[in-house]
């Protein structure tokens, strides 16, 4: 039957099984590759992966631990870019949703920006913002602002006019309607949109780091890939996935905490 409920135990067993299958599958592919070429580094076996782990957790010749340096650099850039994107995306969406003139004014640049692939526009960012922190922040925030702004804007247009008229009969001012009715109504949908934007934001950042970075996940992956040190590249990909997962989990937690009514709605 479609979407029938299953027990918790069964769910855990099935999830474990899928992870186990992935690990076994990888071991088998790697094993076959090493039968053909024992020196192979493209699909490292488990002992090669352990060597890789030593490489990125222990200090290198310059005394730097790659994983620490890269994580810090990437996280800083991502945090700054996403925060700025959140602030501006939300403000632009709110003003477009609440003020009709601003809606007309902001619609063209936003829809244009939304259609330009950020990774293709890398060169533009280098020209305007150099290759430092500013460039990463600009690229990530410009990349996610259109989606976030449009989500907020559409969510506001979705609010039944009855709810706004009603607020006036309860003695609300224009500002109070924007904050007490519109903002609170839109907030959970906005958090959903931020969750969906984390993926693209990481893509933009990694792409930029691969091209101009001197530290960071994108830089390390590109460098180690050139040396076919896949025993570093694969773990780094796993770290990236875990990082994205963690952010997503935190946002979901935040949403459940500050918008408990939204959870109730979706159940």
């Amino acid at each position, binding site marked *: 039957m479609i979407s029938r409920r299953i027990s918790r135990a069964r769910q855990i067993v099935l999830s474990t099984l899928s992870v186990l299958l992935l690990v076994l599958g990888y071991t088998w592919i790697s094993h076959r590759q090493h039968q053909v070429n024992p020196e192979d580094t493209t699909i490292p076996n488990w002992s090669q992966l352990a060597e890789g782990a030593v490489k990125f957790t222990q200090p290198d010749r310059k005394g730097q631990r790659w994983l620490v340096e890269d994580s810090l650099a990437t996280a800083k850039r991502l945090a700054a870019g996403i925060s700025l994107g959140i602030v501006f995306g939300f403000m632009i969406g709110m003003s477009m949703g609440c003020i009709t003139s601003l809606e007309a004014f902001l619609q063209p640049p936003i829809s244009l920006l939304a259609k330009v692939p950020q990774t293709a526009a890398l060169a533009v960012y280098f020209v305007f913002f150099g290759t430092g922190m500013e460039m990463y922040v600009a690229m990530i925030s410009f990349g996610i602002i259109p989606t976030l702004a449009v989500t907020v804007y559409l969510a506001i247009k979705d609010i039944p006019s009855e709810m706004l008229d009603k607020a006036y009969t*309860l003695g609300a001012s224009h500002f109070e309607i924007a904050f*007490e009715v519109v903002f609170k109504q839109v907030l959970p949908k906005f958090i959903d949109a931020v969750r969906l934007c984390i993926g693209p934001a990481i893509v933009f950042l990694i792409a930029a780091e691969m091209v101009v970075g001197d530290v960071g996940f994108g830089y390390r992956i590109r460098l180690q890939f050139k040396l076919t040190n896949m025993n570093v590249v694969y773990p780094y990909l796993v770290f990236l996935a875990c990082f994205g997962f963690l952010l997503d989990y935190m946002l979901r937690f935040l949403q459940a905490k500050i918008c408990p009514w939204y959870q109730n709605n979706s159940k």
Partner: protein
Amino acid sequence: MKEDGHQDFSLQCQKVSHWFGETKVLFDLNLKVKAGQFVSLIGPSGCGKSTLLRAILGTHIPNEGQILTMQNGELISADRPGRDRGIVYQKYSLYPFLTALDNVALGLKLDQTSALFRLFNWSGWAKKRKNFRDRAAVFLEKVGLGHAMHMYPSQMSGGMQQRVAIAQALIMEPEIILLDEPFGALDEATREELQEMLLLLYQENQDAISKSQKPPYTLIIVTHELNEAIRVGDRLVGLSQYWNWEEAGHDSPPGATVVYDKPSPIFKPNERPDYESFENIRREIRSYVYNPDILQSRNEYLMTKLV
């Protein structure tokens, strides 16, 4: 110069006409509602009941004529929604992100505190909020929802939601409460319970009048259920586009106007009405208001009205 008994009116519609392009909706509509009246507004679908209600609410200004509502003891043009008029819609009356208690307390919060006060005077706001919630709880008890104060609208049944919506409007003590088909989406039993709740309010009105105080609630309820209209209202107002406009010198239908306005029998909250006995009133309303083939002369209606 104030006319006699001026203070008693909560609402005056004067020569109100409205049209959407070629579509004529309301024509030369006059309606005065006294404080304490429960007016049932009835009429065939598309006659402009909702248009009139929105005009009174102030969200849709009529093309001609004016609507005056009592605001701070004076009859003032209702050109925008304000806290003197409450509204209960069929749906979307409640804010999904607030519990029942906070939905009811919202009006007090918005009306009696400012955003700056709430932002900068935390202890003052905390004190006020407690007071607002206590008052909201009283109103929820009044509509029979003392047990559901902390539920979100999505957790409540349709009937409960409408009870909260009514409490939300009541707490503002508006001059007039507008109900736009409030029970239209509810099942028969729930409907009757909610009608009883409104009759309890009407009883409070009568108690106030007997102590020669001002009756606290004035209501206009739009409904398509004649039995509901007769049971809840103490006055039946029929709006209809079917009247003898040719006689009045029009080439095409000019829109709906008031064609029926009579007192309605009054019921006690716990009194189960004998709907059979409504038959005479229903028949009269059907012929005057709903029947496109029986075109009543408006002059005749206006004459009887003056007497």
